[in-house]
């Protein structure tokens, strides 16, 4: 009996520790939030118990309204990271402004990296470039430049792609830009947080109704909450120091 309990406890430990605490609606998509690439600079930052994250994004990294800042995913990310990483001094700074293309974000990036000295850059982009049909080459180039700038400033990078937006899907051609992001991420061996697929799964399964026309913020806030949580798990998992698995616990 004791043995069995012990085994159960071990199994639960083996699963990601964050796992049990997230609302079920977030966990629906957790299989999509994984990567085979590592974040070595974050690993080192965790070793010295101090993690600074810089979130750079456009309009889909914020929520409207007075409480918008506190409920958008960057703020949620900070909270969940702090919870999951006890003893680590977690700081998340943001540079979020609507209607910015990747190229525009890259322009201010060096100064931001210099000021914040983050171990991790979380970079959300792609939507505005697709809406303006920016030259895809220029978009890839901007991604390259941004990733290089972050790496040379000592920061790892996580890319976040566009939101899944069913109503405007027939009007914004995300395809090329989503693919470019995936390819640039692969080339630089940078983890890509696939927000699009995650939100699409939520929509397909009916977890969140992303079709509804509403002025209310409740669903938007829950979506951002889940994104923040999954993103935190994603970062922590990719920053785990690589070691041989403990026998039998997984």
């Amino acid at each position: 009996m004791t043995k069995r309990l012990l085994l159960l406890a071990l199994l639960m430990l083996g699963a990601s520790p964050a796992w049990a605490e997230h609302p079920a609606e977030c966990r629906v998509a957790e299989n999509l939030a994984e990567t085979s690439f590592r974040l070595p600079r974050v690993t080192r930052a965790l070793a010295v118990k101090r993690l600074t994250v810089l979130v750079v994004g456009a309009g889909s990294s914020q929520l409207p309204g007075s409480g918008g800042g506190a409920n958008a995913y960057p703020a949620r990310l900070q909270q969940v990271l702090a919870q999951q990483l006890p003893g680590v001094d977690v700081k998340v700074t943001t540079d979020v402004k609507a209607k910015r293309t990747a190229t525009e974000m890259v322009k201010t990036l060096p100064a931001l990296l210099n000021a914040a000295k983050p171990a991790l850059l979380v970079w959300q982009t792609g939507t505005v470039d697709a809406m303006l049909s920016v030259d895809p080459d220029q978009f890839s180039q901007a991604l390259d430049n941004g990733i290089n700038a972050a790496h040379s400033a000592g920061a790892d990078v996580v890319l976040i792609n566009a939101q899944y937006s069913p109503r405007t899907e027939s009007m914004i051609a995300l395809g090329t830009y989503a693919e470019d992001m995936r390819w640039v991420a692969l080339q630089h061996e940078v983890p890509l947080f696939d927000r699009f697929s995650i939100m699409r799964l939520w929509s397909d399964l009916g977890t969140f109704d992303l079709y509804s026309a509403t002025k209310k913020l409740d669903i938007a806030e829950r979506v951002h909450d889940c994104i923040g949580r999954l993103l935190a798990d994603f970062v922590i998992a990719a920053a785990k120091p690589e070691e041989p698995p403990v026998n039998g616990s997984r």
Partner: protein
Amino acid sequence: MAPVSTERDLRLDLFRGIALWLIFLDHIPSNAVSWITIRNYGFSDATEIFVFISGYTAAFVYGRAMQQHGFIVSSARVLKRAWQIYVAHVFLLAIYLAEIAYVSNSFDNPLYTEEMGVLDFLKNPDVTILQALLLKFKPVNMDILPLYILLLAWFPPMLWLLLRAPSTALLSSASLYALMWLFDWNLPAYPNGTWAFNPFAWQLLFVFGAWCALGGAQNLSRWIHSKAVVGLAFAYLLFAFSITMTWYFPRLAGFVPKFVGDAIYPIDKTNLDVLRIMHFLALAVITVAFVPRDWPALKSWIFWPAIVCGQHSLETFCMGVFLSFAAHFVFTEVSNRVLTQVVVSFLGIAIMVAIAALISWYRQAERRGGGPRPPAARPGYAGGDL
């Protein structure tokens, strides 16, 4: 060089019909059924098939017209066809604008404040509509017809050259493709960027199709049927399939060696990447190897729905674009459950088949009824419509 055969090659109609169905399925946003389409299992997609076969039939039909009636008359016919496609494009555009205007009036969601900015162009419709008529403003998924219009408008001199010096013609088309890569040529689009299907690139596939129709395919047939080529084609398709799978399963991405990734990415659709051409060629080689021209099943009822769509491709294509708007409308307004998506997808294909069958029946009835037009002047008969 002359068109090699007068008998209709049903394989062309069949695969163009299938390509039209796949384009329809791919054009419905977030359609679960689009998982079956070929773009998910390799580098190329239905667009390559459509452009290649369109080039093939254009050469077949207008090549004969050019030999019988001369350059001027046949050129006029090609341009008339381009004009028809232009009118069809503008018609689809009107439907699109209606849809977008509806969405902008009925949709509001704090999650999507950024995305709603895409409707800003409605604020100055004068400029937008003018740019659309100039083929510079092209909404999502409405890029193929403008490409087709341009390819046809430029086809008469190319056809003239193809009939006289086919190798020179193909070579000049390939050179244009190479120059495009070298100098980044493309046409400007409105409000930003360039054409999503670069005509300087995609013309290669169109001309290659035309070249095949005018005897090139026969010259190549010894190669196409050799075991080594078929084997290579299989190997390449397998390679493309494995690479594609790493896009959907991020865990597999680690298995792609870095030098492979560096060599192949990005796979450029706008400029018709060489990897995409090779993928299309591999598919074509395997199709030709395993589906003989006189395969009896081509005349059976199983393939009739696809064949009849392929024979009336402009109408079917336009219907497909319209139906994909309608399907998206159903998903947003009624239901987006997977079952709905499946039903809507198959219903859409059924409507496309019904319309194509109706047109086919009407043409035959018209012909039998002995309309005012002398039947010999019909260019569309031998190779099907464009």
